[in-house]
């Protein structure tokens, strides 16, 4: 490599690090979430939201958090976790038990955040436990281990007495309406989104992506693989657990059997549809996949069928070079670039 070329490359890298497209992208995502929540909050609190919509809001928020946190493992670390529902379940039961125990002691404004913290921390401990095998395994084996851990968690919670067993935990004492839960949901969604986006654009995030792209190369540049892999699993589990607590408060009864392998797959479908590694994509896909089945109720038999077809088709399209070319040509980013270029040309003409 000639010296000139080296310099050019260095300056190109510098330029990429110096300009702020990442920042504006993040801002766009935050704005998008803010606008959506501003609209729905207005609808809910002015009383003009339909019952159907307000019932869905909490579960949409929960799925956004689940998808964004799973995206950290799947998109950034490049490993498949099929036990995300298990983390959610652990968090849900521990957080809700805490909430039930303290229901007379604290107002909800204090109790729910504390319960989320408890649920998140317990889930994070499980994330650490499941992250440990992840240090030795990757790919198919790791996916199977996470699946197995999810099933073990489900099995254990179903068989314990203090979690209500197979009949489910009676959460009617802590059940809250959408109007009460929505502010907490919004805050949690914002925290998750901001943490994930900042992580992705930080030194840590780049280290995680380096591990995804080439573990050995990453290790030889001094990246501590143990630390980063565990961090990913812990953070991802923490948010799944916190989301679980929120979810638990929106029902009068929760059954552990609901948080099985199928639910993990459902979250995975959201991540894949939104684009692996894309926070904004996960948010949009979570909203779509919650609203569409509700809107197309008469086709509900075909919902899971459609999910499976979606998974296959997206994977096949992503692998096909022709589609990548088409996507590049018709992407929104390209459109904006095109418009900007035209504008710049016009400005130049005027001058």
């Amino acid at each position: 490599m000639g010296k000139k070329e080296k310099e050019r490359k260095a300056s190109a890298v510098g330029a990429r690090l110096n300009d702020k497209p990442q920042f504006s992208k993040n801002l766009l995502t935050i704005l998008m979430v803010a606008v959506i929540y501003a609209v729905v909050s207005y609808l809910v609190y002015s009383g003009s939201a339909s019952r159907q919509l307000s019932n869905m809001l909490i579960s949409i928020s929960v799925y956004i958090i689940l998808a964004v946190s799973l995206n950290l493992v799947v998109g950034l670390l490049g490993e498949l976790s099929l036990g995300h529902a298990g983390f959610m379940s652990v968090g849900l039961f521990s957080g809700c038990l805490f909430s039930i125990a303290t229901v007379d002691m604290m107002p909800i404004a204090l109790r729910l955040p504390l319960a989320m913290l408890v649920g998140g921390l317990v889930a994070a401990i499980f994330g650490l436990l499941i992250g440990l095998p992840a240090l030795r395994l990757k790919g198919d084996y790791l996916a199977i281990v996470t699946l197995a851990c999810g099933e073990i968690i489900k099995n254990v919670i179903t068989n314990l007495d203090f979690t209500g067993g197979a009949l489910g935990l009676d959460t009617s004492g802590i059940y809250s309406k959408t109007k009460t839960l929505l502010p907490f949901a919004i805050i949690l969604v914002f925290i998750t989104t901001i943490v994930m986006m900042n992580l992705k654009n930080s030194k840590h995030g780049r280290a995680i992506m380096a591990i995804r792209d080439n573990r050995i190369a990453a290790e030889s540049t001094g990246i501590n693989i143990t630390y980063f892999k565990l961090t990913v699993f812990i953070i991802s589990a923490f948010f799944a657990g916190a989301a679980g607590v929120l979810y638990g408060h929106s029902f009068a009864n929760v059954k552990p059997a609901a948080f099985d392998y199928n639910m993990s797959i459902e979250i995975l479908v959201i991540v894949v549809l939104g684009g692996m590694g894309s926070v904004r994509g996960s948010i949009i896909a979570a909203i779509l996949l919650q609203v569409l089945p509700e809107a197309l109720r008469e086709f509900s038999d075909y919902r899971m069928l459609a999910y499976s077809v979606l998974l296959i088709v997206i994977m096949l399209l992503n692998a096909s070079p022709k589609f990548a070319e088409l996507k590049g040509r018709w992407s929104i980013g390209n459109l904006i670039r095109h418009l900007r270029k035209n504008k710049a040309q016009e400005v130049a003409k005027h001058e």
Partner: protein
Amino acid sequence: MIHFVQTLISGLSLGSIYALIALGYTMVYGIAKMLNFAHGDIIMVGAYAVIVVVFQLNMPAFVAILVSILVCAVLGVTIERLAYKPLRQSPPLTVLITAIGVSYLLQNVALLVFGSEQKAFPQIFNFPPLNIGQVSIDGITLATLIVTGAIMVLLTLFINKTKLGKAMRAVSEDKDAAGLMGISTNRTITITFAIGSALAAFASIFYGATYVYIKPTTGSMPGIKAFTAAVFGGIGSIPGAMLGGILLGVIEQLSKTYVSTLWSDAIVFGVLVIVLVVKPTGLLGKQINEKV
């Protein structure tokens, strides 16, 4: 003591089914190097094929068995062609997600076609039970063990002695180098899928004969457990799959009898996690070194 022996025999019955499924898994995983999540669901399709042929077309049992083998083999090859072949060069994550999609697709198509209620599997075999002293072994258990053992021997011979088997071993070792030696990688992998899926048909027949009731989700759990068995025995190793399957079946049955039915799934999956973490190469598997 009799109780213990009888438990071991029930474990053997369960384990021989796992072993039969695990043989198919280990074939495909060993050669195509991909986890075919849909393998368990191919078993479910094979079982439905038998039910349709026997009850709706009123054909004799041996026709049903042949149809089931054919349906499974064709299905396996079709899935490979449409879903897995375009992803040969893709990262493992992509292939894995696609395989999960295929598994779901088969389950949901079966759900739409056959409905969610379970259907009875026809009684196609009628073997007398074998009594040794006070211990009795079901005829079907013996038949499953014999068939699984025979398939294991045949597969081992096929892989080690035939030209096609040699090609499979070559593809498994290094796809590119095998291609340079004039082996058609795609054809070899297709044949692997055909054989693996035909084995799934055998598994479906013996599963149906043992457990009688078939649902669209029948295949997924035994599929995952059989994968556990294949890993336990050492993935890619054919005798290992048989050993792993039988051991896993015995462990599951022992935990059902002596611990609790409720905890048996947790115990089986616990075994899986421990095996994968402590000895990912399994009991009879080869050590694979990672190249830089």
